[in-house]
């Protein structure tokens, strides 16, 4: 008798226990994020990726969480460091899906890591709205992996944007037609230089100095001295962060007088302004933002408040906007990955960066290509269709 009662009570307790468990687990949504915290790209991810993950999750949780099929669910982040190693990125994605059972998985950081992990995202059917991958092959990618979206644009438009801006300056009479081009000897630098050089020649420019330098060069003064002695009117460098800083410093030391000075990656970083202060006025680089747009200003203020650092003026806003696209899609159709992918394909979204509308190749055709530091803000001067571009100004002497 006693044993049966005990068993009955135990059965009831177990039953209540089992029904109680799913209700508790349903409250939070697990969000997986994998990106470099160590390795060569850690610096870039620390500026453009991780703060946006933190800002997005806090913003969503501050308004009660994501509304999924009628229930408000808070977000909980699981972070993995992929050490800038594509093998680790893939392993982390597998762990997020198989072991951590994450409900939402954000795309990784950088062109290389996104392209390397696209197959595994495709295998699991995860919607992959990349925001830091620069590639011209969006049509091939989306044909092979229909779950992948490209938002930051391609290398060709970026290189052609630089040519376009310099052509504008030349046609206005602000600069002559002699241009010096250098690039970092890495796939990124080589690809951009190979697109830009013939484009400059076609636009009527004269290439007075061309050179490439190894990634991680500790001394770029020979490059700058040689470029200066060729007496260019414009200087273009398809460079990575350490060389962007080094070339800018060398240009000031050599007092390179040009009407247009362009360095590629990291020109849009807050630390570039932090290091060079007032002398960045007029410097050109990849990216740009619609600085007069209230949505961006509000985003920048919240970014600084929540993460303690300013956003960069290229990828940051795009990273955040793609999170907003994901957020809006989940609130519209729920957590089913296929439904989310269909929803993204079929709709345009209102985000921090403006309207995001992916075309039939899952590509965002409107993105900023060239920005210029004007009065302490890196304003967009050229794009493939975004609003708010300002006129480019000729660069004065180094201050």
């Amino acid at each position: 008798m006693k044993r049966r009662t005990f068993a009955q009570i135990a059965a009831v307790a177990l039953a209540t226990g089992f029904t109680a468990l799913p209700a508790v687990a349903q409250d939070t949504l697990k969000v997986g994020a994998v990106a470099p915290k160590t390795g060569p790209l850690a610096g870039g991810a620390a500026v453009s990726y991780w703060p946006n993950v933190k800002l997005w999750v806090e913003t969503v949780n501050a308004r009660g969480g994501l509304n999924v099929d009628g229930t408000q669910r808070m977000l909980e982040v699981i972070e993995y460091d992929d050490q800038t190693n594509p093998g680790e990125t893939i392993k982390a994605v597998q762990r997020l899906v198989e072991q951590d059972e994450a409900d939402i998985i954000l795309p990784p950081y950088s062109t290389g890591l996104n392209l390397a992990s696209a197959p595994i995202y495709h295998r699991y059917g995860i919607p992959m709205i990349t925001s830091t991958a620069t590639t011209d092959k969006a049509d091939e990618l989306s044909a092979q992996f229909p779950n992948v979206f490209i938002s930051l644009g391609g290398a060709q438009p970026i290189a052609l944007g630089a040519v376009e801006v310099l052509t504008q300056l030349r046609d206005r009479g602000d600069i002559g037609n002699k241009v010096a081009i250098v690039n970092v000897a890495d796939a990124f630098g080589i690809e951009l230089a190979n697109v830009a050089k013939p484009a400059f020649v076609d636009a009527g420019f004269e290439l007075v100095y061309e050179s490439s330098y190894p990634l991680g060069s500790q001394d770029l003064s020979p490059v700058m001295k040689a470029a200066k002695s060729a007496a260019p009117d414009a200087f273009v460098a398809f460079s990575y962060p350490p060389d962007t800083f080094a070339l800018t410093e060398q240009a000031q030391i050599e007092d390179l007088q040009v009407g247009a000075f362009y360095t590629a990656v990291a020109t849009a970083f807050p630390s570039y302004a932090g290091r060079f202060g007032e002398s960045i006025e007029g410097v050109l680089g990849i990216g740009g933002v619609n600085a007069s747009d209230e949505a961006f200003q509000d985003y920048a203020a919240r970014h600084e408040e929540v993460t303690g650092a300013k956003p960069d003026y290229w990828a940051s806003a795009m990273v955040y906007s793609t999170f907003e696209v994901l957020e809006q899609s989940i609130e519209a159709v729920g957590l089913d990955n296929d439904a989310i992918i269909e929803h993204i394909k079929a709709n345009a979204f209102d985000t921090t960066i403006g309207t995001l509308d992916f075309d039939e190749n899952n590509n965002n055709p409107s993105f900023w290509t060239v920005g210029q530091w004007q009065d302490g803000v890196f304003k967009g001067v050229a794009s493939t269709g975004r609003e708010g571009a300002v006129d480019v100004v000729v660069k004065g002497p180094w201050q």
Partner: protein
Amino acid sequence: MDIIITGFLLGGTYALIAMGLNLQYGMARIMNLANGEMLVAGGFAAFWFWTAAQVSPLLTVFVVAPVAFAANWLLYIVFLRPLVKRARSRGQLEVDAILTTFGLSFVSVGLMLAVFGGDYFSYSYLSFPVHILGDSYGANRVAAFVSAVVICGALWLWLDRSRAGLTIRAIAVAPDSARLVGIDVGKMAALAFALGGAVTATGGALISTFLTLDASTGVMFTLKALIIVIMGGVGDVRGTIIAALALGLLETFVATVIDPGLTLAAAYLLFVIILLVRPQGLFGRRSA
């Protein structure tokens, strides 16, 4: 002419990067693969003092050097002395030291990440031109070169003329025999290791005035330092200085006269040639 001056300035930078490793590997017999991280840590300290309180890196080194000395002393006592005690041969010690310091480098990167974040850090200090013989050079590089001369010169004088320096050279050449003449090899090795760490951190503080670093860039410097130390010959300070200057001159020459894209290739070619012609390095001893 500007090739020679630029080459010397670059050589000075390389000497700062490599001198610490020479002390640690040549004198204390520890192949310290976490050397680059100590360099970056010195750079972080200089960055921090400069951005927070506008303290010149040339002054910060007087804080960085003693702190790095103490930290490296502790590192040696805690992690590396047990390896020295139980190593039955020099080869085994090298392998053990490599594995341990390799692990320590990951720990260091993680610590720096936790404390400073993963962002690049760079600042402008003395980034105005100085004109030497008609050409302009960065004042920060010239300052680093002058400091390199002072540090390396002082080190060489100390090792060559003072009694403590003589003792350290003795344990580098023959640690077992050194014990026979009453030298406390353990304490001297710890001293050499700590001194090497202090020199590296100082070098890091100085080069951070013109290079951009982040928590993960240490490995690149370890590699460069390793090449210079092996090329110059392990255990002799003069070798490191000559190898660093040679590398700086060669890279600048190739970058200016041939093609900046070939600097890495030229550096490694020099390395290979020197090792083929003189396997123990420029100033190294033939015996193991």
